């Protein structure tokens, strides 16, 4: 009995190995297997992502994770690897398509690969009104956001200096 189990086990491993070989053959040939998901591309004329497509396919999660921690804990709000900007570019504004739907940019692949993510339990899966960049190339304009206009400026000139002074004085 034990002998039989072992044989079956070995057979299974061989089958799995063959399947993986077959899959990598596709990958190495650089050809899309016919069953590959259709990923909707931005319609704003932008042909390049923030990194080459292959890199993004493999490592987008690392860029996002890194940015996530920097934004959350250090207040770094650059746009290049921000999830918000992915959505603004890749999902049309006023889109009826929601995360989970095969037509949603993220779901198109994630559904296919059966990798479930929970980003969109909190984050918006579509651009906020007026924020979508499907009409323009979002990667050409990564500018620092302008200051909120409602503040009334007083004492702007000296602030940076006095901030420094305060640090030295350890104002607590």
């Amino acid at each position, binding site marked *: 009995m034990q002998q039989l189990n072992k044989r079956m086990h070995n057979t299974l491993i061989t089958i799995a190995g063959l399947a993986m070989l077959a899959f990598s053959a596709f990958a190495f040939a650089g050809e899309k297997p016919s069953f590959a998901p259709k990923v909707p591309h931005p319609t704003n004329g932008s042909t390049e992502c923030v990194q080459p497509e292959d890199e993004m396919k493999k490592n987008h999660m690392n860029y996002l994770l890194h940015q*996530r921690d*920097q934004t*959350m*804990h*250090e*207040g*770094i*709000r*650059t*746009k290049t690897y921000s999830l*918000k900007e992915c*959505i603004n570019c890749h999902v049309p504004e006023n889109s009826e398509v929601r995360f989970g739907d095969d037509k949603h940019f993220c779901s198109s692949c994630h559904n296919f690969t059966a990798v479930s993510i929970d980003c969109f*339990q*909190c*984050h*918006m899966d579509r*651009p*906020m009104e007026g*924020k979508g960049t499907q009409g323009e190339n979002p990667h050409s304009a990564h500018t*620092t*956001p*302008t*200051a*909120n206009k*409602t*503040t*009334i*400026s*007083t*004492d*702007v000139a*000296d*602030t*940076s200096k*006095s*901030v*420094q*002074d*305060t*640090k030295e004085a350890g*104002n*607590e």
Partner: protein
Amino acid sequence: MSNSDVNISRRSFVEKSATAAAALTIAPGMFLHTVAEAKPADQAVSSAVRWGMLIDTAKCASGCTACVSACNTENGIASHDRPRTDQQWIRKVTLRDKQTKHEISLPMLCQHCEKPPCVDVCPTGASFKRDDGIVLVDRHICIGCRYCMMACPYKARSFAHETVDNTVDHQPRGKGTVESCTMCVHRVDEGGTPACVEACSEAEHGAMIFGDIKNPDSEISKQLLKHGGKQIRADLGLNTGVRYRGI
């Protein structure tokens, strides 16, 4: 503290102690705006800055809830008509002196403590304080244990009990995590002012000032220097970033 005091609710405890500390003379109206510096987007926040608020209870109008509505709109907080469990980042509190019957009204929000008990108790590191003094929940790592809600003396935190389907892109919020006032960190990082402070001045009450309390030239520091600003439950030694006048 006597034994009977131990059982009173946290809210009334806060109210009582605030009233006990009352009777400060209020100075005439002051200019309640301050300017926030915009830092470059790629620069990390720094401990050379400490964001704070000064709330003048003499100017805070009873019955006015402009700050509360502004917060709800800004952060996409919607009521489920269940007041006991609805999320609430800022609320209006009325304090009544039993003896004199004098009433004051004030907005209560996360006090952005320098030594936040919510951070001390968090088992995951989700509750944390940024270098610039803003206390936040990193909801990516919050497990929803709600220890921080128990630890906060100001009842400032809420739990998202239900699926949130009306999030805004600058304030992702979701079921199963704890949340509280972020001092509108998304605005502050871009040189802006918190929505509540803005709404208060738009309603022409000007009871709230926001600014850098480490910068002696900021409007808030000048006001604090001149008139002082009390901490609610100062006895806890938390060194709150939100200070009040007239309590």
